[in-house]
């Protein structure tokens, strides 16, 4: 007989930590199958995907570069999802934040000063916050589903950036390409290590992880977040306003995404382009889940998913593997994680349980 799933008395703490590992293993297995189907030597592909990017110090630095936005947004989304607030439009908040930060950089184009970068970062955070505030307002005031509104706003933000790149913010000396001027020195994030692209944004990501951890585990806000996601009526009974939590988590998500966007344009990219993110806002959703909706988990998961981006690029160069494999892999990882999570609440039972046999 097929094994069946039987509910556990108490959820398994072990599986909470084991599940992402299991998911990763299953994804690797699925990846191997996928490579074989495509006709690429599976072990070579795995090597190109996961080992090679980490084999140089430049590669490790790149892991930090790609990981920074994923971790920043992942931490904020972890808190939001834990509260049951589904901010799926972080990509749009990233876009708007990057746009605002970039606009400030262009405003100060050619100038120098220590004030420029902080102003840019602030503008980026505010841009993301404002974009997320729309979602929060519509949800609290009109009960509009935040999944759909935040997503719709993502598309709108994308078109808006595109519009700005073809018009107002275009580089006047740029031969009509939809790009902005390259940012001047003061508007670029300082690097941590010469010879790499790793910038101080990585430090910000680490700070975000620590702050997120403290908030979630020790503060009243963290407690409120946990209740809100678990039992909204109990949350009201405890005297916490569900609406306030919706606002706070959405604004945090928007702020972090906006920060991430600004970091991207003032770091690795160095200018404004019609496309400033390879889908970090969406991948951060996977980061949050694989990270067990916990800030520290988001750190590890962010690095893992950053690796998949690097791996995709490396595999393309080495083995001509289409970059799209990265997306498939990320999707599979989330699926397998959700599947492995079953084992937290249920255990596998082979055959009939000895004592109970029931109908319906």
């Amino acid at each position, binding site marked *: 007989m097929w094994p069946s*799933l039987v*509910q556990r008395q108490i959820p398994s703490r072990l599986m909470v930590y084991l599940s992402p590992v299991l998911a990763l293993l299953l994804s690797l297995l699925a990846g191997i199958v996928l490579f074989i189907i495509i006709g690429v030597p599976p072990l070579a592909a795995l090597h190109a995907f996961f080992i090679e990017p980490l084999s140089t110090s430049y590669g490790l630095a790149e892991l930090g570069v790609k990981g920074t936005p994923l971790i920043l947004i992942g931490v904020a989304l972890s808190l939001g*999802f834990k509260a049951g607030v*589904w901010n*799926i439009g972080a990509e749009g908040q990233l876009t708007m934040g990057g746009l605002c930060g970039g606009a400030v950089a262009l405003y100060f184009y050619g100038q120098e000063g220590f004030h420029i970068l902080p102003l840019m970062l602030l503008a980026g955070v505010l841009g993301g916050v404002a974009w997320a505030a729309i979602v929060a307002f*519509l949800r609290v*005031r*009109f*009960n*509009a*589903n935040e*999944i*759909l*509104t935040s*997503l*719709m*706003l993502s*598309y*709108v933000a994308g*078109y*808006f950036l*595109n*519009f700005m790149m*073809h*018009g107002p913010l275009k580089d006047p000396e740029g031969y009509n390409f939809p790009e902005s001027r390259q940012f001047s020195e003061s508007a670029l994030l300082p690097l941590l290590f010469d010879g790499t692209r790793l910038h101080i944004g990585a430090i910000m990501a680490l700070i975000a992880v620590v702050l997120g951890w403290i908030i979630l585990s020790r503060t009243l806000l963290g407690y409120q977040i946990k209740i809100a996601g678990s039992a909204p009526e109990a949350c009201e009974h405890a005297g916490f306003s569900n609406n306030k939590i919706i606002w706070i988590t959405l604004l945090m998500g928007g702020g972090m995404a906006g920060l991430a966007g600004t970091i991207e344009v003032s770091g690795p990219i160095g200018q404004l382009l019609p496309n400033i993110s390879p889908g970090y806002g*969406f991948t951060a*959703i*996977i980061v949050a*889940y694989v990270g067990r909706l916990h800030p520290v988990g988001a750190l590890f998961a962010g690095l893992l998913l950053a690796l998949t981006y690097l791996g995709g690029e490396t595999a393309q160069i080495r083995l001509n593997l*289409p970059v*799209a*494999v*990265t*997306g*498939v*892999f*990320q*999707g*599979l990882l*989330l*699926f397998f994680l*959700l*599947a492995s*999570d*079953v084992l937290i*609440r*249920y255990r596998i039972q082979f055959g009939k349980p000895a004592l*109970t046999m*029931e109908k*319906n």
Partner: protein
Amino acid sequence: MDFFIPAMLTIITAATPLLFAALGEMVTEKSGVLNLGVEGMMVMGAIMGFISVHYSGSVTIAIFTSILAGAFMAAFFALFVLKFHASQVPTGLALTIFGIGLSALLGQGMIGIAYEGIPKISIPLLSSIPVAGTLFFQQDCLVYMSIIMVLAIHYFLNKTRAGLILRAVGDSHDAAHAMGYSVVKIRFMAILFGGAMAGLGGAYLSLAYSPLWVEQMTAGRGWIALALVVFACWRTGRVLFGAYLFGGISILQLHAQALGIGVPSQVMSMLPYLATIIVLVIISRDVSKIKLNAPASLGRPFHPSR
């Protein structure tokens, strides 16, 4: 007048994918399941339909394949949600992300390939009627199918026992279970149906609307379809209305110049998404109405108590 008919035709073309996807999702939601993976199922339908028509030359096979593709993706979702008791929201998201990624991978070789689009079928006699004839009776088979589905689904839900059972499951899965109905089986079929319809909607995009393949060519239509179901208050007739309303809005961008609207193209492109938000707000603010029309067990996990 010269402008009217082509404009209306484009509205029909724009509305049909939305109509398919929204109808399918409505049936799924009526059974109490929220499937956020519509976008992923649609885009898989689009690529599989395109690939099949390219290699087989047969529209029938392409339609068949896209239905299977959508249903197959939906089956994954059903497995996770019904058997593994995974939470519906992240599972739906996973389906979307996976679907988009997989379709991009499968579509690598299809970029730039041309296809002339599925042929229109003229209904004899009726198609000779001026205006209405061209509009309603000279459409491709999928458009006809979409309208037939509207009628069929309405009849199914409201006039058949199976439809009543489906609605009951969506109202209270515990009560349905207590009465001996297999909630899992019914939801499984509703989810598959939703996937099949989403696949059809996606296929329409790559076979008739464009017709070609571009990565992520659904461009959020799956999400708009989800919003449409809310807008329609889970009623078939209103889904039809909503799909055509949105079809019209998304087409405005194409005809902006002809209509003399001097707004930048990106802003016009934003319109469907902005319209979706507005429509969601208008409907959602009436909490009572939502409560009365939304399937009461929508999105709630089903744990049959012993």
